């Protein structure tokens, strides 16, 4: 028994040390860090405050863990019955002094932790009256839209990587979370923070980033079939780079697609839900540009849809992506360039699970 217990303790300790060492050596990039006892260093002021609190609670927990597990293992090794010893041990029924001690001391510890925790919560909740940038985040089954309303920019995710949110460092950013279908959760491990995206209410919070870089985020509240693919990227840049990026995107949004030659073939396609297109097959003539008149039949407030064509070579590249997305109730005409004869797969970039077959002859 004693040997087994010592062997366990040893291997557990070895595992713990290994995990700590691996954690310390690994390149600590949020979203891509080797799992260990500590989260990757947070890139927001608020997250850093919360992480110091985490570390404090962690070391208190380790101290209690070592104390209590130590007492258990000591009792197990020291007080086991020896062979042939049938005498009753002393029948102790309790001790008021000890019992008061292990009621009052833990009580003081939890009161202290509560006060520290509330102090940190104040920092996390603090907000500026006129934040320089506001981002409206909309989660829907199973994609994200990021709206920079003051800048006139909107990005909806495509495919399973989702959209990218570009943010300036050193400035307060105000977030507003919206949903029109089920509950999602806006979670960026690098922020050491998440907030639920709840239909029927708008959750708001402020964050201040202080480190440039690219960080992953993903939906953290189970929201159905495509939950695991509801990812996005946060790109933190300097304020100057941010302004340049805004100007570039505003320019790109103004560009108009080239008009279609008259007499081109026109195909009709529609979508009414997030499971499948209403039509599963389309056919077009080879070597000629054609139009796809795409109708999003979702009720008002429903998700956007889109028409895109996958590269038949099998890679995840898209041959064609319809711009802009068709919002609920909208009809959009996409001009598709000439394609070689063959069989293609078309998809909704917002909902990569929605697919159909396009035959070009």
């Amino acid at each position, binding site marked *: 028994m004693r040997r087994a217990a010592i062997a366990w303790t040893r291997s557990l300790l070895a595992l713990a040390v290994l995990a700590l060492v691996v954690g310390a050596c690994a390149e600590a990039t949020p979203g891509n860090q080797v799992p260990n006892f500590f989260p990757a260093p947070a890139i927001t002021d608020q997250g850093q405050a919360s992480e110091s609190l985490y570390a404090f609670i962690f070391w208190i927990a380790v101290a209690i863990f070592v104390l209590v597990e130590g007492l258990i293992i000591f009792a197990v090794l020291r007080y086991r019955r020896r062979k042939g010893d049938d005498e009753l041990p002393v029948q102790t029924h309790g001790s008021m002094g000890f019992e008061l001690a292990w009621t009052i001391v833990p009580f003081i510890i939890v009161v202290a932790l509560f006060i520290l925790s509330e102090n940190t919560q104040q920092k996390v909740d603090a907000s500026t009256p006129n934040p320089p940038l506001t981002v409206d985040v909309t989660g829907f089954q199973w994609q994200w839209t990021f709206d920079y309303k003051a800048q006139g920019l909107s990005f909806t995710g495509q495919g399973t990587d989702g959209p990218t949110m570009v943010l300036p460092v050193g400035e307060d950013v105000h977030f507003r979370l919206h949903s029109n279908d089920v509950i999602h959760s806006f979670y960026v*491990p690098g922020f050491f923070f998440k907030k639920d995206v709840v239909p029927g209410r708008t959750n708001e919070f402020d964050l201040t980033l202080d480190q440039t870089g690219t960080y992953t985020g993903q939906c953290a509240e189970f929201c159905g079939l495509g939950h695991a693919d509801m990812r996005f990227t946060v790109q933190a840049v300097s304020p100057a780079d941010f302004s340049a990026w805004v100007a570039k995107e505003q320019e790109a949004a103004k560009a108009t697609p080239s008009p279609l030659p008259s007499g081109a073939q026109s195909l009709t396609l529609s979508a009414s839900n997030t499971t499948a297109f209403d039509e599963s097959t389309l056919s077009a003539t080879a070597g000629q540009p054609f139009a796809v008149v795409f109708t999003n039949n979702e009720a008002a407030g429903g998700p956007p849809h889109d028409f895109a064509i996958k590269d038949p070579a099998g890679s995840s590249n898209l041959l064609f992506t319809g711009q802009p997305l068709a919002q609920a109730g909208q009809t959009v005409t996409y001009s598709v360039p000439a394609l070689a004869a063959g069989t293609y797969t078309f998809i909704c970039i917002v909902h990569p699970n929605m697919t159909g077959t396009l035959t070009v002859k």
Partner: protein
Amino acid sequence: MATTVLPRATTYSRSRAYEWLTTTDHKKIGIMYVASSYFFMCLGGLLALGIRTQLAVPNDTLIPNALYNQLFTMHGTTMIFFFVMPMLAGFANYAMPLMIGAADMAFPRINALSFWIIPVSGLLLFSGFAFGGAASAGWTSYSPLAEAKYSGIGQDLWILALLLNGMSSILGAINMLVTIFKLRAPGMTMLRLPIFVWTVLVTAVLLVFAVPVLASGLVMLFIDRNYGGSFFDPAAGGDAILWQNVFWFFGHPEVYIMILPAFGIISEVLPVFSRKPLFGYKAFVLATVSIGVLGFGVWAHHMFATGAVYLPFFSAATFLISVPTGVKMFNWVATMWRGKLRFTTSMLFAVGFLISFLIGGLDGAFAASTPVDFDITDTYWVVSHLHYVLFGGSAMAIMAGTYYWFPKMVGRMLDERLGKVHFTLMFVGLQLTFFPMHLLGLAGMPRRIAEYAPTVWQPLNVVATIGAFTIAASMLQFLWNMFTALRRPADAPDDPWDANTLEWATSSPPPPYNFERLPEVRSERPLFDLKHPELRKPATAAAVVVSPGSGH
């Protein structure tokens, strides 16, 4: 005066199957509860193996998303409502009347009804797989995802199954309460009740207050889904957060419903195998009652990230509830202190419980701290925490209880050597499966995802999968142990463990109506008092002879 000797009423000879199907004997019903719970544990375990197999490889497409979502929803629902709850109800059904010296439960036929509802509701729940998909909105079934627009017929079956299951719990709880209050043996005052009986009592009160709240929530969800109600769907003018408030008002007391009787089992096993009384009996009763009361004031700590919670109150209450739980932990260690510990399999599981439950308890301090909870909630960290409480806690205690009471239930000893292998495999499997999940959660892995991309998450997921299969192997070996034990001739003595409480003062298994005679009850350890007259205080009396069934 001539006496007439009435012939003893003979029963019709019935088949054993008929005996079991129609029995109202609390012992047979208790055994059926335990057997059905082990059956559902195997089903729930298979679902878990599916989950762990899928997660062993990044971007795995072995199990389609739609099926994966059913797996974890049904795993949680099965383990909570069809394994842990009925298992503890089964132990309570079997041991509690014996421990208080009663002949049966207060309402034997209602007792049979409470049991038979379980397999029926289980069938209803699992029939979803045959009707186009079982429930797949998670065991918490958050609205609007659980509304008709987003979830199929499996969700309706889930609602109906849980309504039935809840009815079984409420009937059972009332039965327990009446039995404890009205059928105690002479001398068995409230402060001489074995601690297991106290935990059953508090659990029954929690059930009576919490389960009707779940039932009303389920009815509202059913109306939403089928008759166009608008309770929980914002698109119809309802409130998505309302469901969470209703669900967790039940759901957090539910955690204590699943852990308090486990505390009770540990509080019986540790003193017996330490050969000492429980350290601080009254503090233990007080701690159990205060956990029961505080347990109703912490539900919204499941909802910190919704932005719809008054954080300081629920944070403070959650921190506070760790104090009575800590008292119990120290009292258990003090019970072993200076004892003479016998490491039977049951005792090993009890020590395994202490070691593992401590981790689950310490995790609570992180989750109670709102800024930290914002990061760890809904990640694998929480999956780790809840399994350290429900597997490291409840399931380990259930194993301790099974090895402890098995000889009494069926009159046969389980093989102790096989038992120790079972304990070792299960304890190691438990740590391998659930400890790495803490680290995965801190690294940002959300729960309930059917696939993940970062390859750095793979090694620990593989460790967890190996752990899960280790647990499965230990369970197979345990079932084999039970199977071979049942095929042996009855060999268990009345009191194989040199125990303290009344169930060991009758034969193994006990006769119908339990006792030929009862020892005098002068403390929470009546059998110990009987065996050690030298320790008695002066005013002694011989064992009181009572006729079977007169428990008043």
